[in-house]
């Protein structure tokens, strides 16, 4: 999968925003992943060429940070915190429930309909709302198997998902 001309144009406009061109690599990878859902070898090479660094440099950066996906993920990728605060409040059970609900046996596996994948992650910094998860750039709080079911239903396009308390969607914000 390759990047569109539009994304490449945006990437080429990044360097002047930073004191050094290497600082533009991660924002560029962000744009690439936003478009493709993951970072392909072609996309990383395109980013490298656009920023005049070696592809190996981009690959080294991309594989270091856990928010960059080098394998395909579902349309909705669920980052479920299971560090101690969430684990004490049932994160493990939630993870098992999610895997069963979306029909995958492994973390990182994409559901058959392509809609979902799930991975346990380290502390997401919303411990007072444990257990919680992040998906599609927003947090979902105070999760139970029931609220998970409601969320999945909403994402499958069949329900309102209001049962899970959630923060406002940043990308749909008022600015």
């Amino acid at each position: 999968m390759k990047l569109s001309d539009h994304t490449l144009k945006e990437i080429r406009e990044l360097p002047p925003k930073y004191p050094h061109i290497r600082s533009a690599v991660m924002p560029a990878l962000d744009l690439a992943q936003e478009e493709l859902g993951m970072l392909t070898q072609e996309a990383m090479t395109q980013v490298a060429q656009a920023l005049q660094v070696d592809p190996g440099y981009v690959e080294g950066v991309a594989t270091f940070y856990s928010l960059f996906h080098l394998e395909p993920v579902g349309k909705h990728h669920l980052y479920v915190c299971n560090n101690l605060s969430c684990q004490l409040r049932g994160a493990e059970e939630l993870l098992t429930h999610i895997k069963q609900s979306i029909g995958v046996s492994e973390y990182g596996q994409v559901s058959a309909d392509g809609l979902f994948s799930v991975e346990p992650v380290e502390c997401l910094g919303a411990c007072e709302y444990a257990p919680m998860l992040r998906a599609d750039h927003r947090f979902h709080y105070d999760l139970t198997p029931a609220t998970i079911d409601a969320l999945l239903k909403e994402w499958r396009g069949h329900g309102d998902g209001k049962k899970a308390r959630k923060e406002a969607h940043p990308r749909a914000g008022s600015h």
Partner: protein
Amino acid sequence: MPDPTPQVSLTIDGRPVTVPKGTLIVEAAKLIGVEIPVFCYHHKLDPVGACRLCLVELSPGPPRAQTACTTPVAEGMAVRVTSPMAVKSRADILEFELTNHPLDCPVCDKGGECPLQDFTYRHGYPVSRVQEARLHFAKPLPISDRIALDRERCVLCYRCTRYYDEVAWEQELTTNQRGVQSYIATQFDQPLQSVFSGNIIDLCPVGALTSRVWRFQSRPWDMDHTASICSRCAVGCNVNLWERRGELMRVTARENDEIDDGWICDRGRFEYTHVNSPERLTQPLVQRRPAAWEGALSRIAAGIKGRGPRLGVSIPADITNEEAFLLARLLNGPLRGARVVMQGRTSLPAPPLNQLAIKDLDGCHTILVVASDVRADAPIVNLRVKKAVAKSGARLLTVNPELIDFDRHPGVEHVAYEPGHAAAAVRKLFDHPLLQQGPVGILYGDSAGSEDGAAIATAVAWLAKEIGAKVMPLYRATNERGVLAFGILNGDSLDGCEYVLTWGQALAVPKGVRFLACWDDFARPYHDRAQVVIPATTFAEDQGSYTNLEGRVQFLVPPLQPRPPLRQGWEVLQDLGLALGLASDYLGIFQVQRDAAAAYPAQAALAVPPAPAPTAAPVAMGAARP
């Protein structure tokens, strides 16, 4: 001039040492022969404090061990390398290093010269206490046709990736993933492309990066080595040539800070296997039949004597000064008037007087590179330019038709010109802002032969005079500068010559020559047309010297003896002279060198024997082991 850097006195395990302020503890210890083991630290790379093996105890200092590789000395500091805390700290680190190491020393090429092996023996626990299974990676992994990577042996000191990034300014070798999952990788698992890749083998402190060319050929302790000079280009990097049972086993870097800074390029490192080839020519041939040297040389003499300009002589890029001198005697006598061409040379004329030495690059305010990417012409000088820019803050101005690899570095300025107009581009630079403050060093080539080297040299000489710069012509052929000093080159091709002597691989032998003699190490297609073929030595057998592109004379120290009937080049040339009627009675090469130095003042250094290489201080060991 007194040293402006203040001195600092300290003790290391009770032994006093005084060093310049800013010296790292690990370097101060080297001076008095105290071993502080290191993996990540390398004196040519920026210190990073990653492996933690150099932990020592400091007083005054915190109540925990400190890394000697990142801590500068301080006045009155007491460094304790063998205190119980320091000894235990290092032993613990070594135990961690070995937790996932495969311990496959018996089949590892590094065995015998492996710092991990040596340090474990000298600083580690006597028995392994690790119960867990070891992590596994696929092994070994070819990362180019010349280098293999074994990730299980890797201790992630990052010397290789840091070298690539800091020294070579390339990132085709990086670290992927993080934490215990980290591993060294080439970009998208593609083979390494860099002409500087082989240095990572020398840098690797374990058996993770090994030479596939040398792989499983011999043990380090089975080899002898000589301190010689690379013959692949005009830089003259210092190398060690490793020999076992009459074969050249490998080539490694031999640090000379004035020339190579400890690096060699892949041509120098890997292009040696031909020396051992069974295809080598060993026997003089006359009309394709084995002959004695006397008969063969007589036939050659008869074929080339007195032919004047109808004779063409092609000489190899790596002809030694001594050979060139003896050839010059023939060209001034029985072969007077012959046309002489040199393989692989530039069109640059004889060197200027305001020569820039390689080590001068470190102190340049601005470096100007004209009509060359330096990488192809003089590879290791390319790295020295990068060092000057990255570590000494030199400004870099490149003048080339296209962007070159230097230009990816931020702050490098590029001036483009229409191909064929390099000289004009140089003349326009006299008021360039970067050239108004000295010292300025100018490196110039001839764009791989596509520009008029004489015109560029003239323009550069003018510019250098205008702005007060020193210059370095980037000769390509190994001893191009040495040969220019003997004044024997007078042609670009053998076209039109009726009588031809080729020495080494000639670019083009004209059709229909009346006489052809070839002196070569391998058979070539055009040898079929030769009346005489005689065998040639290589850099691994040849005595003699090269003059590098900055004018420095350095001597080959061959690890191999020519196997009879193979003979040294200077001996063959002397006998050819005798056959041509020229009296000569050299018994050894030193007499040749003395005569050459006397006759050609530019080559006076030929009569000065090289200084012996310094020997390292003996290493104190013993109590370091827990």
